[in-house]
């Protein structure tokens, strides 16, 4: 750290409070020119808060930010900030009502003679920009119609198009599948070569080792350490994040008894088809078994899982749960048949932001809260306390609104709800998106525990960590099951299968 040039960005003694929450306490961060600097920490450690301070969205309560040794611009002077730093925020900054083209060039539209916006030029520029990212969307589409992945690329493409020499990426990969991540990394490496500096936040530690030079760990609103990535083995990194050194085993390592034979079939899917989703899918899951549905973003695995839980209806085929045939397309029917599930996008379908943890967690089990639709507040809070304890949700109490939790903790609330009705079948779609390592272990450990108690589990995900604990994995490609892998598969074989390449099982 003995560089002669001043650091590209430096935050010193930064403190930021939200009401009684201290999001950052006397934190510091130094990002040197040309490096790719990783910022890691558990959910709620204060990473995103630091990002918003570094990019001028929020002013710190105490402390200073400098760029290249110069004090940061005034908070009001957004243009000055944007010349110094570009950012992909964790929270989407896409405006759904506006077109893709306009989102890309918002507040910097091309103007024609006469000072009016030239939409033709804006669209052309947008098309060119997206072409370089091989994102094939019509730039006149309202952003609301984009898929999660497309939206994420629009954000990334926009951030990188400002020409800033310092770029912050707050969990850019959380919503991307393997191929898309590779595309992003290729591009980042290109820019690294050109000397662009990155601050990179991710809960996928492997990405840190693949991409970054330096890593800073935050824990509980404080700076814990900064080190060369090469000098910090994975176990030490995790220990620094979590504060305890003795754990670190990856999930799914435990041997599990095979459950495929003898036990009752909990879920059976027969000849299921839906146009635009999947075709002629059949499989079964037994009690105590964990089955993975793997595949790229548009392979149909998510749609299939959503059909099982009643969020969609299939065009043909049938779903049996615990021997019953719940009405297709009805979530209440699926719940009644004993399904618990974690939906794909927690913001969209997972929780009601302005309701408490207790209310969100017990939304699916009103019958457990009191007789005849009445709610006994004490029973509800007791139930919620159990959830908070079981899943280690970081909150002052069950009355906290979910909107005030960090992303990982929000995910835990959704998970808690899925487990609330003691499901016979647990369906998880991307269950650990945006969740930190230790919480991920926690959640996946809970899944195994649940399975051990006899629940059938279906995991639809493209995260290898999620899939590793499965007894077997069904690989989807373009809406069809193209293969099945038993426990003990190799990562590259699964990845290849998900990409539609030849299977070598």
């Amino acid at each position, binding site marked *: 750290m003995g560089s002669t040039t001043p650091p590209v960005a430096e935050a010193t003694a930064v403190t930021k409070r939200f009401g009684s929450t201290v999001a950052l306490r006397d934190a510091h961060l130094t990002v040197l020119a040309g490096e790719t600097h990783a910022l890691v920490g558990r959910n709620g450690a204060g990473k995103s808060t630091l990002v918003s301070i570094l990019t001028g969205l929020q002013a710190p309560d105490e402390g200073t930010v400098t760029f290249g040794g110069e004090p940061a611009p005034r908070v009001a002077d957004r243009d000055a900030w944007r010349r110094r730093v570009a950012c992909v925020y964790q929270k989407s900054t896409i405006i759904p009502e506006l077109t893709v083209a306009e989102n890309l060039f918002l507040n910097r539209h091309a103007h024609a003679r006469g000072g009016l916006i030239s939409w033709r030029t804006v669209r052309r520029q947008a098309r060119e920009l997206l072409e370089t990212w091989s994102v094939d969307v019509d730039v006149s589409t309202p952003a609301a119609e984009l898929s999660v992945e497309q939206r994420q690329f629009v954000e990334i493409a926009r951030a990188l198009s400002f020409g800033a020499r310092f770029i912050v990426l707050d969990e850019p990969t959380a919503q991307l599948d393997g191929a898309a991540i590779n595309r992003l990394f290729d591009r980042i490496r290109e820019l690294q070569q050109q000397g662009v500096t990155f601050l990179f936040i991710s809960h996928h530690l492997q990405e840190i080792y693949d991409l970054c030079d330096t890593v800073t760990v935050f824990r509980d609103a404080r700076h814990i350490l900064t080190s060369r990535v090469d000098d910090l083995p994975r176990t030490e990194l995790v220990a620094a994040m979590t504060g305890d050194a003795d754990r670190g085993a990856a999930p799914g390592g435990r041997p599990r008894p095979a459950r495929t034979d003898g036990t009752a079939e909990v879920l059976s899917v027969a000849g299921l088809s839906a146009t635009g989703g999947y075709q002629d899918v059949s499989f079964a899951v037994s009690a105590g078994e964990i089955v993975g549905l793997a595949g790229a973003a548009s392979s149909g695995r998510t749609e299939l899982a959503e059909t099982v839980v009643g969020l969609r209806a299939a065009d043909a085929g049938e779903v049996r749960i615990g021997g019953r045939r719940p009405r297709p397309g009805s979530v209440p029917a699926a719940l009644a048949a004993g399904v618990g599930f974690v939906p794909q996008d927690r913001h969209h379908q997972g929780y009601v932001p302005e309701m408490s943890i207790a209310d969100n967690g017990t*939304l699916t089990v009103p019958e457990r809260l009191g007789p005849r639709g009445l709610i006994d507040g004490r029973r509800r809070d007791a139930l919620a306390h159990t959830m908070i304890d079981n899943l*280690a949700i970081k909150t002052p109490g069950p009355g906290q609104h979910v909107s*005030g939790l960090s992303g990982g903790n929000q995910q835990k609330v959704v998970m808690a709800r899925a487990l609330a009705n003691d499901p016979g079948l647990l369906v998880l779609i991307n269950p650990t998106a945006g969740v930190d390592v230790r919480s991920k272990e926690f959640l996946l450990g809970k899944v195994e525990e649940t399975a051990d108690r006899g629940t059938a589990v279906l995991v639809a995900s493209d995260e290898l960590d999620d899939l590793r604990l499965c007894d077997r994995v069904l690989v989807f490609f373009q809406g069809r099951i193209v293969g099945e892998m038993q426990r003990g598969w190799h990562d590259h074989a699964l990845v290849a299968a998900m990409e539609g390449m030849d299977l070598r099982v």
Partner: protein
Amino acid sequence: MSETTETTTTTTVPSAPAGARPVRRIAVARLRDLALIPAIVVIAIVGQLVNPVFLQTDNLVNVLQTMSEMAVLVLAETLVLIVKKMDLSLESTVGLAPGIAAWLTVPAGAGHGLGLLPGAWAVPVTLAVGLVVGAVNALFIIRFGLNGFIVTLGMLIVLRGLLTGISSGQTFFNLPGSMLYLGTTEWLGVPASVWICLLLFAAGIVVLGFTSFGRSLYAIGGNIDAAKAAGIRTDRVLWTVMVTAGLLAALSGLMLSGRLASVASAQGNGDIFTVFAAAVIGGISLNGGKGSMFGAFTGILLLFLIQNVLTLGGVPAQWIGALNGAIILVALVISRITGGKAQD
């Protein structure tokens, strides 16, 4: 928002020390409900200084009686707003529902009616009209997916027009006894309409706060997709809410007709404005999912207390309006200061 306490020193994730915390949390939640109480207290003190009549039981009962019909409307609108819909047509139902009942039951001649039905039918007809209006709104909004503001605005104009049409703009009077009952009877020395209003609000507080049906309203208003994914039959709940609102508006109209012993063709006109004002001032969000029944009640109470104090204070007629508005603004600022971000 922002109510996490400092857990920075503990490294392991804490299992929320259950003792003191929840109490504080409940206190905060209560505070939001009680945001208007300081403003109401100030008004009460000012009222008492202005005119010692103010705090007399008679006067307070008067205020409650005068506001009872409007309060029932506020209750109805609160339900609708919590599920993130709007119902402007409530104000027309207040006139149309008892209007149709009067038209059908009042003997031809004296009171402009047709006299087609015996008087005992009046109350069921009134409520049925409210039910039908609510169902038509629900059909357009929930079934056909039209915008609630527009549909109920159209309905407001249609229904108001219908009443003008059937009454030729005249007032129905000589109403059957059954229609007068709620507006004229006293139970235990207090007007029936006051009891009904208070009981309905008590029921509203219980349903919204302590039943899973009530909670599903908040869930739908807060995030309808999440509510669906949580197995709430959202359409069914929305239908129930819209139809209940229509029914409550009809009841409100019945109470008002009873008190005034007539149905004017303009009955209810312009009320929706006050209704929205009361609900929003009382902390109900136009964006759905927020606010409590008790808050809504304090909202309408505040507005009527201000009116009462201005009347007792004998403000010159032409300055009543300005003063009324100024006091409302000040009350809002007070509740903003005492109740935090309650109004957002």
